[in-house]
């Protein structure tokens, strides 16, 4: 590794305001300073800085040996990333859109997810598969799905989706350090939507991947969300609180797998009501699991005062750009759903 870094730069911390793209870029930058086995590979991540500019500047800084423009071959990217991880590196592989990660599905399912098991812990794969996902940015077909279910249902893979710049920064760094393969999905709807101020630095302390995060305490109803939808949910909850006087317990589940149902179910036992809000399809979207974990647990189920409502995208292919915002679950739908569940038993 030719790069010579001033120790000074490594120790430095600072407080900066960033959007999600900047936060992810900075997270990789700091992680690469912190650990010189970290590298980035993918299509157009180098000279171009990524088609969303998420890796902008990193090739200039770390060289084309650590920020690598690959041929156009996703299974090649995933497969060589696995090999790199086997042999001592911590690769961050970018898939240009989650919709083009399926070319490498078998590498995720058959190898990334199983190497630990298949060597009884002898070989572990610390690698991150980054992929932008989700609708709302006027993209082309195949560019807008939200199919985290594929990864959540696959034992051996973790799945992480941040919902703000600060979380993107911290969770990505935690994912890079995680000893297991992380399917890291970036809500591109949030890429440039809003900044957050927080402390960063190559050597600052990074907590490991968390469970469910109670972002706002409340008594009347539990709202569970993640990713781009989480921010919509947060706004809806403000409205609900301010305009309707409904006290929402708002939970973010950035780590979808393993899913921390203990925290969510505990909240539902308190509120007696649960609304799930996500842009994945309804059928076997994460909401199904959230509902099932509630329903299978006696002490939670029998505290329910209303059906567990799933406010989600429908079970159809994401429409083209003029209809995608209507397809996406919006604030209004969540507000209505919460009002409806509040009507039960009152």
């Amino acid at each position, binding site marked *: 590794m030719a790069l010579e870094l001033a120790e000074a730069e490594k120790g430095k911390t600072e407080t900066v305001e960033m959007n999600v793209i900047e936060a992810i870029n900075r997270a990789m930058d700091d992680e690469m300073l912190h650990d010189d086995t970290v590298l980035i590979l993918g299509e157009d991540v180098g000279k171009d800085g990524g088609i969303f500019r998420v890796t902008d500047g990193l090739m200039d800084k770390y060289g084309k040996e650590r920020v690598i423009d690959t*041929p156009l071959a996703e299974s090649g990217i995933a497969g060589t990333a696995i090999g790199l991880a086997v042999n001592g590196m911590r690769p961050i592989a970018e898939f240009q859109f989650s919709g083009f990660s399926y*070319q490498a599905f078998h590498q995720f399912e058959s190898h990334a997810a199983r190497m630990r098991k298949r060597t009884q812990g002898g070989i572990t794969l610390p690698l991150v598969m980054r992929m932008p996902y989700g609708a709302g940015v006027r*993209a082309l077909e195949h560019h807008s799905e939200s199919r985290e279910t594929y990864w959540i249902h696959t034992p051996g893979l973790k799945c992480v989706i941040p919902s703000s710049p600060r979380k993107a920064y911290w969770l990505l760094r935690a994912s890079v350090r995680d000893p297991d393969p992380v399917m890291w999905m970036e809500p591109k709807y949030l890429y440039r939507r809003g900044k957050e101020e927080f402390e960063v630095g190559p050597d600052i302390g990074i907590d490991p991947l968390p469970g469910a995060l109670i972002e706002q305490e409340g008594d009347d109803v539990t709202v569970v969300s993640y990713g781009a939808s989480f921010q919509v949910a947060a706004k809806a909850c403000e409205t609900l609180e301010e305009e309707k006087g409904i006290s929402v317990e708002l939970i973010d589940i950035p780590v979808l797998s393993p899913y921390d149902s203990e925290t969510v179910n505990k909240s539902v036992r308190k509120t007696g009501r649960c609304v799930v809000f996500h842009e994945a399809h309804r059928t076997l979207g994460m909401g199904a699991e959230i509902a099932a974990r509630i329903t299978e647990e006696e002490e939670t189920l029998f505290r329910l005062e209303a059906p567990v409502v799933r406010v989600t995208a429908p079970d159809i292919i994401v429409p083209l750009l003029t*209809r995608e915002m*209507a397809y996406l679950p919006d604030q209004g739908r969540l507000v209505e759903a919460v009002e409806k569940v509040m009507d039960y038993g009152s």
Partner: protein
Amino acid sequence: MEEGRSERTVPSRRWSDRKEKQMPRSEVDWPNEVTYLQILDADGKVDEDLEPDLPKETLIKLYKTMVLVREFDAARLRLQRQGEIGTFAPSTGQEAAQLGSICALKDSDWFVPSFRETAAQVWRGAKLENDLLYVAGFEEGMALPEDTRDLPISIPVGSQVPHAVGIAWASKMRDEDTVTMCYFGDGATSEGDFHEGLTFAGVFEVPVVFLNQNNHWAISVPRERQTASKTLAQKALAYGIPGVQVDGNDVLAVYAATKEAVDRARDGDGPTMIEALTYRMGIHTTADDPTKYREESEVEKWRERDPIDRMRVYLMDKGHMDEDDDEAWREEAKKEIKAAIERYRDNVPDDLGSMFEHTVAERDPYLERQRKELMDYWERAGVEVGH
């Protein structure tokens, strides 16, 4: 840039350097020829020995389509920059590669595009207003008649290659003399689907022509970082398929090579892969900024080899057109585009419920419930198309 080839060379593989360290071996004899064809030189001068026998009307139609599509790219770019339509991939610079090849097909042949073949689509009869509808974000623009022989564009790179092979295979099974032509870029040759598609094509000897537009870039990745192979054409040989290179900005060479390949396929002699050396003159798509990764000087050099300019010289030399024609045809193209834009604007749909159509044939009650929920909500909340 002699003969349309890139100046850049692939990294030396140091093959021969090691020769003296190797023990003597026998050579395997295998069909390993790759040829290169050019008919119009960079200035548009024709090699008369090679000149294909194309009727004047066809030549003029080719030229006019080139001009139309070039203008259409410009018009779409304006609409995109104004926010009226979304992302698209321009054909600019690749008109000869697309039209020289597509014009070798019959209507009854199959056309399997990638995502950058507007010129070829227009030749096949695609309506500009449908393209606009699609790019503007309306599924209605994707409607294809039931008896179509054109596939919709394929966005996942390379994934259409096995489709083309399957289509051609079905024609062969029914003993039809139908040919399938499949387009893809230089980047696509790295995808597993390219490999698997060509493997099947070779084994089952199906009547397919693989038309590779090597425009030297896959977004920001230059051809020589895409693969260490010297040419893309030689990749065909790995599948027992002949591979040929042509000057892709020379409409006559593209036509001649494609025609031979199409005839070969139609005669039951199997697939061919053609590497058309061309250049993506502009942006990858409207989301792209090429100044991030390539030198303007490289673009300049290719501008001198513009396929439209070269064809114009050729047609003028032949006396098929003059400056006035050129002017008139360009105006005609602009008018046609303007009319198409109007037709598109007049036909912008305003319903939302159609997003539930065409998922599967029947209606699933649970999905119908979701549709109803949503439609009621849209009504209540005043949600509209394009909101």
